[in-house]
Every structure is written in structure tokens, then in C-alpha cells.
């Protein structure tokens, strides 16, 4: 009787969040998937009935290159962000709390300025008459005719710049809980500093690393403002295409189909990874019993 009461009260407490998640996350996601199967009418609205035409339209010959670019840019920027965030977090976790707070603040401060303003700052910075460009020309590293802006490298650099804090925070949260006497223990057992870092520090904070990967990879796949503002026509990403389909072509089903594709591209590998991990663990416990 008592446990049933507790059950009911748990439901009541959980209900608002549950309703929120269903109404604002689950239903819209299902809608996005469903929209991909709707025909489009001449005025940018949705037509009657269902069609597979939009899905077939995804075979647009310009798409593979864009999808490929979205993937490698997303993966490269994630890899760079995580690779930079790990040593930063390692050092942060070892610092005294006063310095730690200062550095953390410095990492978070950019969030206080508007995202758009920061991207425009990069535009000024990399501009054909900007300081950075002039500096590189002065040193003789590049020629005056080289453009730093409006190409995929500019997009990559700004993406990495934008997402590094997102990678630092979860990794730092894990590293902060890391027991550094484990590094002493590893060295005591004859491990080099690098071996201890690779075989003890990294595996122990792996949860934070995977969170960072997710937190960076997902927005990186969907990025459209950055390629829109610092990229050129040759550096479009799937995000740009989705925005174009919505705002310019007014073709919601097509945009939905692209979004769904992106979503599946993130979701399926994640599920696969989970499943593999699960199977591995099951195998381990079975071996453990014998």
C-alpha cells in the first residue's frame, strides 16, 4: 500500500518533465520524420497524402559531397576539440583552486558574448585586410592573393574555436574527480608518464570524453551559421542545405528528410556502439563466472 502510494507520488513528481519532453522533444522529432513523407504544394505548404518523392530527391548529385564534408568537418573538429580539451582538463584538475577558477572563467567568458558577434569577430580577424592576414603576408607565410575567409578551412577553425569550451567542461568535470594518486601508483609500478596517462588517466575519464564527443559532434553536424558566415559556396554543409530548403525553397519535407538523415547518422552509430559495449560486457561477465 505504502509502496503504491510512493509510486503514485513519483509519477506525479515526474509527470511535468515527462510531459515537457514528450511535447517539446519526442513529438517534434516524430513530426520531422513524418514530414519527410509529405508532398509539398506550390505555396510552400504541405500537400495531401503521402509520398516517397522527397526521400528519392535526396539522391541529388550535389549532396554526397556536402554530406561527406559535413561528416569529416564534424569529425575533425570534434577530434581537435577533444584533443585540446584533454590536456587542458588534466592541467586544470591539478591546479590549485584559485588558478583553476580563473582559467575556467576565461574558458566560459566567451559564452557571455553573442555567438553571432563572435563569428563576426572572426570575419574581421581573417578578413582580406585584417590583422592576421596582413601579419602572415608580412612574415611571408602566405601571398597577398590568398584568402583566409570563405573556405572550408575557415569554417573548420571557427567551429573548433566555438566548440572547445563544450569539450573542456565535461572532460574537466571527469578529470576533477580523477584520483591523481593513481598516476603515482602507475609510475610506481614502472609505467612512464605517457603510459600512465594513456592507460590510467584516459580510460578512467572516458565517460567525460564520450560526453564531450557527443556534445561537440552533434552541433558540429548540424552547424549552419558558421559555414554560412565564414564559409563560401564550396564549403556548404548539410546544415546550410536544411536552412536553404526551409527559408529559400520553402520545402519543409525536403528539409525534414535532410534533418532525419543527420539524426540517423548520429543516432545509429551511437546505438551500435551501445550494443557492442553491452555484448562485450555480457561476454566478460560470462567469462567471469566460469
Amino acid at each position: 500500500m505504502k509502496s503504491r502510494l510512493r509510486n503514485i507520488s513519483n509519477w506525479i513528481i515526474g509527470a511535468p518533465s515527462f510531459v515537457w519532453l514528450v511535447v517539446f522533444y519526442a513529438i517534434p522529432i516524430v513530426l520531422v520524420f513524418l514530414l519527410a513523407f509529405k508532398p509539398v504544394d506550390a505555396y510552400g505548404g504541405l500537400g495531401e497524402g503521402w509520398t516517397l518523392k522527397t526521400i528519392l530527391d535526396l539522391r541529388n548529385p550535389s549532396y554526397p559531397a556536402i554530406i561527406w564534408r559535413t561528416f569529416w568537418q564534424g569529425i575533425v573538429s570534434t577530434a581537435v576539440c577533444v584533443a585540446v580539451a584533454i590536456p587542458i582538463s588534466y592541467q586544470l584538475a591539478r591546479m590549485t583552486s584559485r588558478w583553476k577558477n580563473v582559467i575556467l572563467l576565461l574558458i566560459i567568458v566567451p559564452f557571455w558574448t553573442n555567438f553571432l558577434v563572435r563569428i563576426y569577430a572572426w570575419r574581421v580577424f581573417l578578413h582580406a585586410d585584417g590583422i592576421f592576414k596582413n601579419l602572415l603576408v608580412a612574415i611571408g607565410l602566405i601571398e597577398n592573393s590568398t584568402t583566409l575567409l570563405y573556405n572550408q578551412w575557415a569554417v573548420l577553425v571557427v567551429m573548433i574555436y566555438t566548440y572547445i569550451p563544450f569539450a573542456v567542461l565535461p572532460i574537466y568535470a571527469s578529470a576533477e574527480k580523477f584520483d591523481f594518486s593513481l598516476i603515482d601508483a602507475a609510475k610506481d609500478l614502472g609505467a612512464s608518464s605517457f603510459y600512465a596517462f594513456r592507460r590510467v588517466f584516459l580510460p578512467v575519464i572516458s565517460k567525460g570524453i564520450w560526453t564531450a564527443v557527443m556534445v561537440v559532434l552533434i552541433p558540429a553536424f548540424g552547424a549552419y551559421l558558421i559555414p554560412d558566415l565564414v564559409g563560401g559556396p564550396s564549403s556548404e554543409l548539410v546544415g546550410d542545405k536544411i536552412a536553404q530548403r526551409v527559408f529559400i525553397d520553402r520545402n519543409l519535407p525536403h528539409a525534414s528528410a535532410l534533418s532525419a538523415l543527420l539524426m540517423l547518422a548520429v543516432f545509429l552509430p551511437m546505438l551500435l556502439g551501445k550494443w557492442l559495449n553491452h555484448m562485450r560486457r555480457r561476454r566478460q561477465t560470462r567469462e567471469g563466472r566460469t
Partner: protein
Amino acid sequence: MGEFLRFENITKRYGQNTVLDNVTLEIQAGEVFSLLGPSGCGKTTLLRICGGFEPPDEGRVILDGVDITNVPANRRAVRTVFQNYALFPHLSVWENIAFGLKATGQDAKTILEKVPKYLELVQLTGYENRKPGQLSGGQRQRVAIARALINRPKVLLLDEPLAALDLKLRQRMLIELDTIHDDVGITFLFVTHDQQEAMSISDHIAVLRNGRVEQIGTPTELYEAPRTSFVAAFIGDTNFFEGTVETIEGDYCTLNIDGFPNIHLFNDKKVHRGEKIHVSIRPEKFFISAVRPEVTDAKTNLLHGKVEEVIYVGPHTRYWVRVQDWRVSVVQQHHGYGLDERRIKWDDEVWLWFGADNAYMLEHYAEVDEQLLALPDLEPEELEAVVEGGTQEAGATE
């Protein structure tokens, strides 16, 4: 086998605090050597210097004839069992134990051969696939010991290895540690604040206080012949008396202890007439009786007092007896049921006596701060504060 590990004039400072002050120790091959002292005495710092985790400011560490002061931790033939065990949480028991072999690049065959042997040594066969989080405290400690021993170090450092265990388990692990030590024959350097632990496992003990060596000796030497009041009070219970030497008769002397003019003592410190000295007498060295004993031997000292407190603890009874200005702690072992002819109760008038050979003259006496002895284990930051307080306290008494 001779001297094996040598700490030579080790000094270590943290800012203003001198944690280790010119410490010199010699440890024999194959023995269990304990560093014993209250929190903040520098014992853990000395261990960390030996393990290579911290460099000394001055002095050298010599292992088996080689100066290893500047050899990094991972190149020393020294392994540590950490106080919190520091097991790798992401690795299984097997992988934890194999870690040292893998890290030093040994082949798979050696690993397959050695790990089961060490699992057996610490009685963990069958637990290979457990993670540290699935083990009890005692099991975790055994993993830590196997992990440290598998590379056959020359010295095994044990940093308060039993502190995290409960009393019963501690006693069992102590016996187990002793057995493992007999099995592997590796030199153990054991750090503890628990005098009983140190007494029961060690061949030699160094008592440290405020970064200095107070006394080095076998457990018996430290217990029966403490050099200073600190050692006497830190290892076991004791009674201190202050007196003036009155007469010298051969190897013996008589002492005037506050109203007891004729206390006979063995004069091992070769004191002179008129000298003021302090004496330590262990509680169990006293005999107690409600009936006045027949004392014929001149070397037996007889005192008369009144019982203030009686604490019966099974194997023995502890009495607090008021003898004029002194409150004397007396312990009497029960050798048989009903042996005490007359039970001694509160406020009884009693007779105490002890032999002249059973009191021990101290070289150095200072008020022993009971609180310092009772300090719990502290974190390094807290420890620094204690060290600071400790040195001030020492400065005040000296």
C-alpha cells in the same frame, strides 16, 4: 646481510615547515622496518622520498649500494602499497596485478605465468575478473600487495596499509602481511601511526617526531628501554617520575622521588649524585596487593597508596593508585581464576612494589602532549598545519 637501504641526512621542507630534519636511517636486507610516529611526524614524506614521488631538499637515498636519490619513481626497484590502495578502478583484479608487468614491457607469456602465482599468494584466485569496486577492503588491499610485489621489487613500501580496515580485519591482515613477507623475503618499509601494528610486525622501528628520529631499535628495546619520554609514552602506557639521585652503590643508585627517599634503581645511565632525572615505569612492572608483602630484597621498592580507579578488562585489571602526589597506573595480569586472594576495590589502601631493574631512566624528558598522540590521520594540507603547530610545541618545551 648488512645495510641495504640507507637514508642519509634527509631534509625536506614545505615552505617554512621542516618536515624532515636530517634523518639518517639504515635498513637491513629482508627485514620489516617500521616508521612509527604521530601524524605530521614526517613518516609518509620519508616514504614518498623513498618511492621517488618527492625529491629530498638535502641528503641521499642509497639502495643496495646505488644512489637512487635522483632516479624517477618508475625506474626504482621500489614498489608502494598506498594508503587508499590506489587500485585502477577501470581494470579487473587480473589487469591490476598485471599492470606492472605490462608497463615494463614484459611478454604475454610471463604475464600468464606470474599473475596466477601472485593471485594465489594473496589468496584471490577466482576473483580475477572482479573490478576493485566489487571487492571488500581486505581484498582490495591484497590486490594492492600482489600488484606491488609482482615485479619483485627490492623494497616494498607500505603506507598505513591497515588504516582503512576495521580492527578484526586489521589483525588478520597483519598476520597475512607477515606470512607474505616470509614467503617473498623482500625488505618491507612499513609506515604507521599505530604502535601495536609496528610492534607486532617489525624487526626494527624508527620512532619519528617532528621530522626527527627519536629512537631506532627493536620493538623490545623501544618498549623496555625508551630513550625519551615521547617514545615511552607513544609506545605503550607508562608512569613518569622525577627525582634526585641521592647515593650511588655499584651499578645501582637511590633516588629521592618527592617524599620517597629510598627508591633503588639500576644506574644504566651512569648518573651522579645530586643529578635530577626522569624515570619511566611501565604499569605492568608494578605488583599490587592489599596485604603488605614481605620485602627482604633491598632492590625492591615498596610504595603505599590508595586505589582511585579500578578497570577490569578480562585478561588484566588496570588500577589508578594515588601515591602521595603521584597517580600511578598499574596493570595486573590475571594468571588464574580466583587467584587474587582479596579483591581490590575503590578507596582500598594498597601496597605497590617494583624491582630496581624494572624502572628505566630517560635521557630526555618533555611534557608529552597527549593530543598529539591522539591525532587522527590527516590530509597533506591539514598535516602541514599540524607540523607547524608541532614545531611550535617542540620549541616551547625545549
